[in-house]
């Protein structure tokens, strides 16, 4: 097997990883909330996409938008009604709250959808570039993931709400003094985190079987990516996602599939010691 294929595999899964992590990273960075619901949000997005495709024949590429909107509303409400009440408490309090909420959401999904794996049977075929095979659905997912991540980056840099989020992240009290409604910004940020998870779920539904049993796996990946790339920034999630994708692909190729996951965690540990800010540091708040 040539290296071209290894790199292609790594980049394709890496873009999806970036998409998985970016919402999680944003919420963690801005709110200092470790959202344990992130994996379940992704799967909920996946299920909404699956049922839209199954019953209404809506292509996942189209349902990304409504699914993302639904998740935004859900995330906004959860933050506004619940997490905002304890958001200034130590991180363990909010972690416990989101952990509890995740158990509720997870069990409801288990009840409604069951853990039986399902799949959006949308096989678009593949591109063959001189021996390097690219499955088209993964290519589409990769492009969409990059577009979504880029879009979030643009929103954070240029829009009023984006600047407000960054301001709150830099200094909550100063932002409040400047007339920013902090609670509102928190709710919108959490909403955006959920929106990214939902959109990512729509992409995941195209490339992976969807089942409730993988929610923890997504959450774990988001953690590793955030630590590798750097917390709270869009480029951090992107770099972390692509890096993890490539690390796993090469470790799996050179050694064995078991070593792939191990290597990801090892590099995470090394980075925690050597460069706790992650690869793309915290040079500034974008």
């Amino acid at each position: 097997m040539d290296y071209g294929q290894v790199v292609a595999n790594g980049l394709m899964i890496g873009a999806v990883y970036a998409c998985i992590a970016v919402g999680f990273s944003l919420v963690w960075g801005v709110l200092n909330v470790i959202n344990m619901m992130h994996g379940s949000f992704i799967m909920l997005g996946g299920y909404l996409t699956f049922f839209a495709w199954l019953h209404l024949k809506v292509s996942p590429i189209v349902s990304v938008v409504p699914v993302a909107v639904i998740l935004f509303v859900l995330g906004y409400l959860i933050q506004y009604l619940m997490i905002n009440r304890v958001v200034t408490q130590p991180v363990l309090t909010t972690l416990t709250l989101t952990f509890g909420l995740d158990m509720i959401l997870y069990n409801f999904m288990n009840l409604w959808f069951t853990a039986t794996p399902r799949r959006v049977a949308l096989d678009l075929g593949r591109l063959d570039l001189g021996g390097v095979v690219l499955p088209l659905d993964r290519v589409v997912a990769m492009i969409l993931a990059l577009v979504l991540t880029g879009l979030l980056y643009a929103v954070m840099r240029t829009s009023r709400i984006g600047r407000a989020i960054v301001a709150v992240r830099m200094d909550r009290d100063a932002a409040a003094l400047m007339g920013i409604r902090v609670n509102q910004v928190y709710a919108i940020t959490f909403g955006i985190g959920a929106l990214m998870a939902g959109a990512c779920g729509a992409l995941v539904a195209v490339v992976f079987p969807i089942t409730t049993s993988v929610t923890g796996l997504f959450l774990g990946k988001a953690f590793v990516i955030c630590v590798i790339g750097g917390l709270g920034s869009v480029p951090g999630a992107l770099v972390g996602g692509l890096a993890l994708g490539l690390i796993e692909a090469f470790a799996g190729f050179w050694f064995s599939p078991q070593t792939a996951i191990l290597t990801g965690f090892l590099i995470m540990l090394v980075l925690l010691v050597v460069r706790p800010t992650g690869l793309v540091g915290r040079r500034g708040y974008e």
Partner: protein
Amino acid sequence: MEAKAWRNGIGRLAAALVFGALAAGMAHAQTIKIGAPLALTGGLADEGKKQAIAYDMWLKRVNAQGGINVAGKRMKVELIEYDYQTQEQRAQQLAEKLIVDDKVDFLLAPFGSGHTKVVAGVAERYGVPVMATSASSDVIFNQGYKYLFGTLAPNSGSVENLIAVVTKGIPSAKRIAILGREDVFPKAMATVMSDAAKKAGLEIISLEYYPVGALDLATPIAKIRSLKPDWIYVTGYSKDLVLAKKQMADLNVTAPVVTMITGPVYREFIDSLGPLAEGVTSASWWHHSAQFKGDDPWGSTKAFYDEFVAREKSDPDYVHAAAAAALVALQKAVEKAGTTDKAKVRDALASLDIVTFYGPIKFSANGMNGGRDLPIIQVQGGKPVVLHPESIKQGTLRPVK
């Protein structure tokens, strides 16, 4: 007033009914008690529930027929179930409680080899016959337990049949690539395949395991592509196998023979893969398309299947069937012994030789059901088709396109 009179009347009627039922109960005071520690919550909840469904189906059937025939007298059966929450310690405690407190006559082991071993240890100490419904690893049955009997056949049996079917159908399939999940049963099935294939003179060109937490299988599958195997053999659970087959198609990886253990056995595998499932072979302990006529409360595989589908709105798999079959074996052993005496029923189990809806049941010396020719299946035209054994064959092996 009228309402009061009514209520009064109903009260009297209820009292009469309760009294009548009590009296009837006295007449049938002797019931056979069977104890079952079940994983109804926790990690194995899905499997535990499958067992509970099968037990309940059997119980209703048997009691509707008046109970088990013990030396000409019908004895009703009472099933005592406790949730051991997928915790080994609790399984052990509950097995002891069932024997000592509830005074059960027989025990049913929980799902999986590990917890079966724990419960079998307790049962052995008290001399209570215990039926294993879903343990297929030899290590449980080579402990010298005399009271343990299991309805599944050893892992190696299914693999040997598979190799026989493939080498006969597609003799050119000589080079095998194995990809297994690093997990108790899937890993055992990969190792057993590797050993059996070598013994059959086939070549294992790669044997790799992927970890339980693998989200993506692109790398190991792309590796297999460069080896150009004649036979790709993957083990795992439905989610892994759906992903593996999809990524094989994505990366243009295929072989004349593609086996997935135990994917095609489950309906969701075929449903979610659609045309991609076509041609995949598998082995199972039981499949509902393997029809048997048997001497049991159902009488035939079809009757069991129909009742299950009407009740659960889905297809039964081997877990359901093996659980119900364990109770059938116990029932037949009690009938044969003509008593509920534990040691005598144990001897009757050891010499049992019957055919049921589940297939033949005949325990070998170690207590495992050895008298079974395990079915080999292939997905053809979107449905699982039995390739082996000859007696229930529905089609012949086709190379994967």
